[in-house]
């Protein structure tokens, strides 16, 4: 009786605990971990799988438990990981495919370096190469035993057939794994840390470790979506729970994706820092003994609080406020516009000089970037910090495929970054970096506008480089950024001006709400546009997404002549120079102040407008409000009968002449 009572009580307690745990997971609250335990080794939480894992924000179908040890002297990592992977596709899977990104810098023949070498000015490093070797690979299929499958591992090159590339490995399974079933994969590996390559590596005693562990691709639509590491693309992975124990020499400050849940000091002068992140699809970390560790809390009346942790280089100590301020501005604006940042914590890493790790996003952690001398009115570190913080939304949560559709996250984020900067830091000025790039100089008379943050100039130079629908890894490496970042930001800004911000904001918020913690495709976004606007905008996406056509509208002629009756006959000819089409307005202004506004569908090559008025025409403008920001030549969009070009040219040529005289005097040193 007594025994059965105890048994019943224990069972009831277990049920209550499990129920409470499940309710906690189901509530969409920020992840909160227990207090930091120093010097006491604790058992890691059980891997998030099964019923509890499925209750997270994401499918949590690719969870990683990793133990990694940094050998500071040898510049190596030694890791052991267990992956809990669940097949969430309808089709069965018969093999596993892994990314081994660090093999991209194993030798000059990798696909990454073959492509990188196509970029003008790139110089191959002489040393500091990296590699990752799997030393043990075991798989346990559902209800099966562990099987050693290392000898079945082979490298594949699904994109270009490059036999020298070792960034993707595949291993066949004994039997196909059906939908909903879970595999356990245990991998031991060693890796040589590179000198900085693609934002990962070491410099001096600073480490930034990204894309560092064997990582599964995404199994979707009955096949693995795994691409080799390309120079113009980034990453794509499933969501999961990451529980990572990082062992580094004593005294190293460690920052990582997720939140620190434990720190254990060992007798061998090392310390293990354990981090846990839920509903994330990647994990990066940094370690250095010299990082300043600062925290600040983001609070907002309508958004969840966020503990911001800034790991700052000591030489940038005076810029801590700038880092925090722009991160807060981004958390607030993106939160208000798109949806809340739900994690409750965010780590900002200020990268070391020459680390090459600046300006990169990882879930709940990102790297900013600044200089020792950084004037307040030049937006460094603000610009890069806003952008990378913004990636928590566009890619961190809305996890589009960066290897195939990088424009989704990069373009959306570039657009939104420009919007944040325009609102939060309107006093931005053009800056120069002189004397080897070390000395800044602010051109206080040259303010930057939001269009400059959209990067119209770099788009214009490469407007026809690629059609955005092309998988990103096939973009031309030297110009990929102009299409991925700039063109997308410009057409989104064009949509904003065309539809109005409230409509575009609703589109983006709907897209975010619907696709956070999932993998959207371009079509999913286009569908949301149609749904929210109630109109078919495929004509627009045909131009900006499915073609590389450029937009260029202009004024071909403006004549305003008296017809002998004190009236003036005004003739306006406007022209479409580019192949791409967009509706624009044409505004003719007369001497008496009257303005006539015409709506042109922009389809024909040219349109003629004729007016008879008492007043002579003064000027005509196509797209006077500059709605169409993709117009590659805006100078030809206007014409006036009272031109001031000579006046302007005189002023600027005099300014330039003084510059030339100064140059002559500088060379006069040699006389």
């Amino acid at each position: 009786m007594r025994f059965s009572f105890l048994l019943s009580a224990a069972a009831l307690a277990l049920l209550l605990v499990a129920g409470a745990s499940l309710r906690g997971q189901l509530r969409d609250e920020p992840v909160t971990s227990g207090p930091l335990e120093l010097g006491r080794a604790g058992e890691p939480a059980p891997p998030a799988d099964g019923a509890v894992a499925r209750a997270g924000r994401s499918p949590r179908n690719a969870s990683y438990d990793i133990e990694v040890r940094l050998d500071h002297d040898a510049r190596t990592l030694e890791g052991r990981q267990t992956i809990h992977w669940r097949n969430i596709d309808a089709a069965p899977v018969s093999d596993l495919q892994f990314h081994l990104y660090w093999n991209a810098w194993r030798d000059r023949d990798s696909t990454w370096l073959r492509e990188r070498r196509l970029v003008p000015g790139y110089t191959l490093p002489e040393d500091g190469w990296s590699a990752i070797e799997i030393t043990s690979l075991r798989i346990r299929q559902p209800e099966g035993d562990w099987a050693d499958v290392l000898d079945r591992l082979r490298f594949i090159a699904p994109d270009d057939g490059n036999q020298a590339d070792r960034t993707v490995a595949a291993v066949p399974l004994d039997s196909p794994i059906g939908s909903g079933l879970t595999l356990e994969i245990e991998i031991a590996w060693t890796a040589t840390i590179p000198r900085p390559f693609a934002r990962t590596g070491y410099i001096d005693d600073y480490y930034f470790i990204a894309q560092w562990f064997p990582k599964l691709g995404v199994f979707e639509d009955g096949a693995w979506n795994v691409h080799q590491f390309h120079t113009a693309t980034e990453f794509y992975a499933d969501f999961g729970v990451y529980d990572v124990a990082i062992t580094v020499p004593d005294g190293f400050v460690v920052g990582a994706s997720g939140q620190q849940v434990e720190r254990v000091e060992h007798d061998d002068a090392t310390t293990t820092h354990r981090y846990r992140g839920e509903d994330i699809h990647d994990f990066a970390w940094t370690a250095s003994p010299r990082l300043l560790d600062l925290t600040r809390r983001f609070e907002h009346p309508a958004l969840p609080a966020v503990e911001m942790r800034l790991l700052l280089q000591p030489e940038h100590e005076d810029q801590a406020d700038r880092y925090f301020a722009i991160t807060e501005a981004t958390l607030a604006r993106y939160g208000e516009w798109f949806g809340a940042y739900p994690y409750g914590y965010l780590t900002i890493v200020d990268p070391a000089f020459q680390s090459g790790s600046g300006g990169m996003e990882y879930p709940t952690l990102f790297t900013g970037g600044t200089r020792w001398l950084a004037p307040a009115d030049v937006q460094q570190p603000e610009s890069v910090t806003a952008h990378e913080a913004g990636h928590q939304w566009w890619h961190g949560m809305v996890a589009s495929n960066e290897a195939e559709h990088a424009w989704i996250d990069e373009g959306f984020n570039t657009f939104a970054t420009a919007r944040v900067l325009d609102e939060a830091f309107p006093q931005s000025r053009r800056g120069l970096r002189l004397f080897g790039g070390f000395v800044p100089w602010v051109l206080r008379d040259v303010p930057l506008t939001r269009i400059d943050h959209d990067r119209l100039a770099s788009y214009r130079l490469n407007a026809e480089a690629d059609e955005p629908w092309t998988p990103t890894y096939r973009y031309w490496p030297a110009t990929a950024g102009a299409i991925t970042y700039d063109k997308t930001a410009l057409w989104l800004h064009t949509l904003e001006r065309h539809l109005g911000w409230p409509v575009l904001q609703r589109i983006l918020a709907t897209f975010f709400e619907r696709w956070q913690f999932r993998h959207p495709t371009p079509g999913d976004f286009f569908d949301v546009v149609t749904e929210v606007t109630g109109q078919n905008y495929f004509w627009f996406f045909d131009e900006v997404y499915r073609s590389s056509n450029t937009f260029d509208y202009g004024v071909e002629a403006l004549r305003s002549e008296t017809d002998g009756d004190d009236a003036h006959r005004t003739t306006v000819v406007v022209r479409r120079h580019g192949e791409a089409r967009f509706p624009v307005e044409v505004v003719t202004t007369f001497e008496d102040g009257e303005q006539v506004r015409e709506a042109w569908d922009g389809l024909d090559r040219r349109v003629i407008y004729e007016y008879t008025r008492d007043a002579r025409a003064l000027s005509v403008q196509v797209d006077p409000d500059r709605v169409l920001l993709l117009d590659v030549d805006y100078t030809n969009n206007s014409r006036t009968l009272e031109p001031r070009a000579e006046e302007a040219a005189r002023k600027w040529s005099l300014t330039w002449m003084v510059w030339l005289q100064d140059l002559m005097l500088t060379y006069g040193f040699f006389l």
Partner: protein
Amino acid sequence: MVLRCWRDGWRRVLAAPAVVVGVLVLTCVLAMPLALLLRGEIAARLGDSLAADAMADGVAYTWWEEFLAGTTSLGGTFTPAVVGFAATLGNLSDLLDGRAPAAPLVWALGLYLVAWTFLAGGILDRYARQRPTRAHGFFAACGVFFFRFLRLAVVAGVVYWWLFAFVHPWLFDGLFDDLTRDLSVERTAFFWRVALYAVFGALLVAANVVFDYTKVRLVVEDRHSVVGALVAALRFVRRHPARVAGLYALNALVFLAVLAVWALAAPGVTGSGAAMWLAFFGSQAYIVVRLLLKLQFLASQTALFQANLAHASFVRAPAPVWPESPAAETIGG
């Protein structure tokens, strides 16, 4: 002695305002044709557009970028870095970083250097004699010394070319990269950079000082051998290192002070009316000060050299009389 020569230099420069006017006219005459070309290009690109209004009244950076995207040669030098003090700083930065001037400017700079090479003889002769030589005497002296200075320019050109083609890359591409390769602190790398600028600057200044005193000795002692004058200049510098360095440092300090004032006073972007002309003439005042300083280097070094001779106005050759100079005869005949 140094201070006295420095003051004496200024006295000699200010006593010959025509020289200052002359070199100012020279910079204007050489810069103006290119400025007119650029003016034409800007005007053509603005055309009848309303963008001209924004560029006339202030600055339209988006238009500027559009202009830069569509230009190839001279227009490519019309960047925001031409505005205000950025122009001065940018030019110094380019020089110290060994960045060659844009191709369309090379001939103008070459012409400027040749013109100065021609004028330098007359200028030094005027400062050495410390009395008006009139235009005919001035240009006669220019003619007398032109070919000697041209030979010296070849020697100087070789030395400077060696410094920029070999020493500069060795210092800034090789040594700097080696010194900073493993640095993770920018401040330290910056200090290395400054140190290397100091080393490279010292080499440039050393060469500059020797070539300056070579010119002085060519004129004051009426030397015909450039090599002889070069050796004599080296001897002079070696015998009076403190005075030579002190005088150079004093002039360099004035140069830095001028830059500091210009950094505060340089006009930015103006409108296209009276403010534009005010900015332009204000900038010309700065150009004049820079030219005065350039002349002061020559005059004070001449004064220092002469101060170490028997008397301060010693010039070995009689004043050349037009048209008896070989150059004038060549031109005339």
